[in-house]
C-alpha cells in the first residue's frame, strides 16, 4: 500500500460501485403516468385532502405550467420528461400498522440494509425515525414520548388530517409555489413528507430524523417537509437518504420549509446519498431541491449537509434573516465523483438588524465530475450591522474534474461587514510529504488530509449523523479513508 498514489486513488474512486443498490419488491400503488389536473385531483383524493389543499395544488400547477426550467446552473443533463413520471406511489397496504410486527418484513429488511433497524434505533439511540418508503410514511416511533411535550412529529399527510390549521398557516410561507419551477411542481404534486411542530419554549429532547428512499422505478418523489419551532423552542432535525440503483434518471424535487419564530433554533442536518449514476454517468438521481428557512427575532437556523450522491444536484438551503439579531449558518461538504454534477450553495438574506451568517462550504471533486458552489449574500437596506463570513474551498482529485465558485455579494447597507474567500487546490504535496515522513502511509495520509479538510463541517453534525457521514465519506473516497 505504500505505493498508493493519488492517481490510484482517483482510479479507485472511478471504479467503485454504488453500495446501496438494491430494490425492495413491494407492490406499489402507482397512479397513471403523466401530469394534468386530473392526476392532481386523484393524488389529492387518494390522500383524502381538504378542499383548500387541492385548491393550492391546482393553483401551483397553473403557475408551474407557465414556468420554464431554470438553466442558469452549471450543470448539463437531459431534461426529465415531466409527462413520463408517475406522480404517486405508495406501498400497497392501506391500513396503518398497529405495531412493529405488522410491518412488511421486506420493508424491515430494507431498513436493516440502510442501517436503521427500528428495534435497534428505539432501544439504543433514542432517535425517533419517521421512515418514508417512497411516499407514504410507514412507521413512526417515540411518538408518544414526543406528544407528552406537545411536539408534533408526523408525516405530512397525517398533519394535513390532524393539524390542518398549523399546516394551512405555515405551508408555503417560506417557499411559495411561485418561487421556482421545481417548487411549483412540488407544490402541485407533493405526495408526502414530514411535519414537525415544537411548541413554545420546548426543547426537543431527541434528534428527529427522517429517511427518504426512492424505490419504485420511474417514480418521481416529491417530498414536503415543514418544521416549525415556536417561540423559544429548539429542535435538531436529521434527514438522510440512500436510493437503490436504477438506470433511468429519477427526479427528486423536494421542498423543505423551516420556520424559526422568536428565540427559536432549528438545526437541520442532511446526509444525501442518492444513486449517483454509474461510472459512465448513466442513470442517477436528479436532485432539484428547494430548502429555505425564515428566522424571526433572535432565532437561529443552521443547515449542515453532506452531499455525496445524485447525478445532478441543484440545491441551495437558504436562510431569510428577517428578525433582528437572527443567525443563519450553512455548513456543507459536497463530494462529486465520476460524472456527477453538483451546483449547490446557499442564500443568506439579511433583512433584520445585527443579523449574522456564516457559510462554510467544502467541495471535493473526483473523476469527471463538476462541483460548483453558488451562493448569495444579500444585505438589505435595513440590515444595520449585518455580518457575513463565507469560506468556500475546493479540492480537486483528478485533472478531468472541475471545481467552480459563483458567489454573489449584494450589499445595500454601509454598516454591513461581508467577507468572502475561496480557494481551489489539490492535496498539497508538502502535506502528503509531511505525513509520510512521519511514517503514515500515503493512503492514510490522504484520508487524514481529506478528513481534516472536512472537519469544520463534520463537527457540526449531530453525533448520530457524524458516524454515518464519516461512513459515507469513507465509501465515497474508498481506498483512501482508513
Amino acid at each position, binding site marked *: 500500500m505504500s505505493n498508493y498514489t493519488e492517481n490510484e486513488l482517483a482510479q479507485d474512486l472511478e471504479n467503485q460501485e454504488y453500495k446501496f443498490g438494491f430494490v425492495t419488491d413491494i407492490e406499489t400503488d402507482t397512479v397513471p403516468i403523466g401530469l394534468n389536473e386530473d392526476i392532481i385531483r386523484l393524488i389529492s383524493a387518494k390522500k383524502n385532502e381538504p378542499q383548500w389543499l387541492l385548491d393550492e395544488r391546482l393553483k401551483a400547477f397553473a403557475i408551474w405550467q407557465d414556468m420554464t426550467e431554470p438553466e442558469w446552473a452549471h450543470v448539463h443533463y437531459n431534461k426529465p420528461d415531466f409527462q413520463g413520471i408517475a406522480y404517486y406511489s405508495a406501498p400497497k397496504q392501506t391500513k396503518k400498522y398497529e405495531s412493529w410486527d405488522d410491518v412488511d418484513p421486506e420493508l424491515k429488511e430494507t431498513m436493516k440494509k440502510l442501517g436503521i433497524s427500528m428495534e435497534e434505533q428505539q432501544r439504543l439511540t433514542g432517535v425517533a425515525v419517521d421512515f418514508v418508503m417512497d411516499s407514504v410514511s410507514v412507521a413512526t416511533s417515540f411518538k408518544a414520548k414526543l406528544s407528552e411535550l406537545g411536539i408534533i412529529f408526523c408525516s405530512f399527510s397525517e398533519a394535513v388530517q390532524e393539524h390542518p390549521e398549523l399546516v394551512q398557516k405555515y405551508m408555503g410561507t417560506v417557499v411559495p409555489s411561485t418561487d421556482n419551477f421545481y417548487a411549483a411542481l412540488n407544490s402541485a404534486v407533493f405526495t408526502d413528507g414530514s411535519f414537525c411542530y415544537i411548541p413554545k419554549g420546548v426543547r426537543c429532547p431527541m434528534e428527529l430524523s427522517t429517511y427518504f428512499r426512492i424505490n419504485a422505478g420511474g417514480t418521481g418523489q416529491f417530498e414536503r417537509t415543514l418544521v416549525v419551532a415556536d417561540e423559544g423552542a429548539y429542535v435538531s432535525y436529521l434527514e438522510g437518504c440512500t436510493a437503490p440503483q436504477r438506470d433511468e434518471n429519477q427526479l427528486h424535487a423536494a421542498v423543505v420549509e423551516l420556520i424559526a419564530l422568536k428565540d427559536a433554533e432549528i438545526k437541520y442536518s442532511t446526509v444525501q446519498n442518492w444513486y449517483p449514476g454509474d461510472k459512465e454517468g448513466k442513470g442517477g438521481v436528479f436532485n432539484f431541491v428547494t430548502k429555505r428557512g425564515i428566522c424571526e427575532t433572535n432565532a437561529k437556523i443552521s443547515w449542515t449537509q453532506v452531499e455525496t450522491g445524485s447525478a445532478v444536484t441543484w440545491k441551495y438551503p437558504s436562510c431569510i434573516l428577517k428578525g433582528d439579531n437572527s443567525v443563519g449558518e450553512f455548513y456543507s461538504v459536497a463530494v462529486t465523483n465520476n460524472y456527477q454534477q453538483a451546483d449547490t450553495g446557499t442564500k443568506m438574506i439579511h433583512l433584520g438588524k445585527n443579523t449574522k451568517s456564516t457559510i462554510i462550504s467544502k467541495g471535493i471533486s473526483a473523476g469527471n465530475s463538476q462541483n460548483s458552489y453558488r451562493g448569495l449574500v444579500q444585505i438589505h437596506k435595513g440590515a444595520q450591522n449585518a455580518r457575513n463570513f463565507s469560506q468556500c474551498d475546493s479540492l480537486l482529485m483528478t485533472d478531468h*474534474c472541475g471545481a467552480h*465558485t459563483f458567489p454573489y455579494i449584494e450589499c*445595500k447597507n454601509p454598516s454591513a461587514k461581508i467577507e468572502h474567500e*475561496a480557494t481551489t487546490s489539490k492535496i498539497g504535496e508538502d502535506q502528503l510529504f509531511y505525513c509520510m515522513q512521519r511514517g503514515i502511509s500515503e493512503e492514510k495520509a490522504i484520508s487524514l488530509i481529506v478528513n481534516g479538510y472536512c472537519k469544520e463541517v463534520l463537527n457540526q453534525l449531530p453525533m448520530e449523523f457524524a458516524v454515518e457521514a464519516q461512513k459515507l465519506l469513507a465509501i465515497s473516497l474508498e481506498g483512501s479513508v482508513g
Partner: protein
Amino acid sequence: METIVSNKLDQFIADLKASQIEIPTALQETAQAYLLGKDFPTTRAERFKYTRLGKLAAAQFHDPVLLDETQLKAYSVVQDAYTVLINNEQVFLPQDLPLGVEIKLLNEASTSFHDATFNDVFGALNALYAQQGVCISIAANCTLDKPIQLIQVNSGGKCFYRHHFQFGENSEAAIYFVSKSSADTIGFAHTHFQYDVAKAARIKVSKIQDCSTGHFDFNEDRAKQGAQSHFEINTITLDGSFVRNDAVVAVEGQHAQTYLNGAYWLKDEQHVANYTTMDHKVANCESFETYKGVAADKATAVFNGKVFVRKDAQKTNAYQSNANVLLSDNASINSKPELEIYADDVKCSHGSTTGQLDENALFYLRARGLSAASAKNLLLQAFMEDVLTYIKHEEVLAYIHQRIAQRFNWNY
C-alpha cells in the same frame, strides 16, 4: 441591420452611421447574427443583473460640437508623451515617432482582427458601427522612451471606437488612455480595445476614465497574451454617470503574468461596473486582480470577475480580490468573484470584502488631532492606494489625487 426587430435597440441604432473602418465581413456577419432579434438587455440577463439600461434608452443625444487640437491637448494628463487625440470622428496623430513605433488610423494600418467574442449587444454594435480607431504597433525589442497617451474626448452624441494595440516580441511600453467629455453634453461612447501582446513583451495600460455627468462610457478590452509576457490593465474610474468595463484576457503562452487592477470612486447616482475574465489556456501562468472601490450617495458599483482555468493550464496561480467601502445608506455594492477551474494542480483563490473603515484606525487618527472627516478621507485614500500603487507615473497619480480631492472634497 433591418433584421433587428426589437424596439429600444432599434431606436438606439437608428441614427448611427455605418462603420468607416474596414471591418472584416466575417466579423460583421457574426455581429449581425448576434444582434438578430435582440433588444437592450434587461436585469434578467446575467451580465446586466445589476445594470439598468433605462437611462441609456431614454437619453437624448445631441449633435457634437467638435473641438480643435489645442482644446483637445488641454485634456492631457501626461505632458511628455506621444499623444493621440480622438474627438468623435476626428483623430490627430502624433508626429516624430521614434523608430519602431507606428501610430496610424486603423484603416491605414496593417492589422488583423480577433475572432468575435461578444459579451453583450454593444460589442456587436461596435463591430458594425465603429466610426474611428487607431492602431498602435510597437516593433520587436523596442523600448519606448516615453509613454503613449490617447486622449479620447466625447463631445456628445453616440460614438463607437475601435483601437488596436500590437506589441512586438520583447517590447516595452506604457499606454495611458484618458477618457474625457466636453462639459454639459450628453454622450455615449463604446470603445473596443484589442491587444496582441507578443512573447516577453512588458506592457502597462492605464485608463483614466473621467467623463462628466451625463456620459455613458462603455469599454471592452480583448487581449491575447504570449509567453513570458507581462501585461497590466489599470482601470481608474474617476467620474462618468455610467461606466462599464469588460476585460477579457486570454493567456496563450506559458510563464505569462497578468495584472488587472481597478479603482473606482462613486457618488451621486453613478453606476460603475467592472467585468473581468481571465482565461488561462496554458500552464505555468500567473494572474492577479485587485479591484477596490468606494461608493457614496446613491451610487451602485458592480464587480464581476471570472477566473477560467482550462484543463491544460496546470500550475496556474490566480488571485482575485475585490474590496469595497460603502459610505451611504443608499449606495450599493454587488460583487461576484467567480472561479471556474478544470485543472487540478492549480492555486486559485479569491477574496471579497464589503465593509466600512476600521474604528481603531479612525480613533488612532482622531487621537492625533485629525477631524472626523479628515481621518475618514485619509483612510479612504490609503484604502485605494493599493491599486494606485500600480500606476508609477507621478503626473498621472497627481492628476488622480487632485480629481478625487476635487470631487469628494477630500482635504486634510
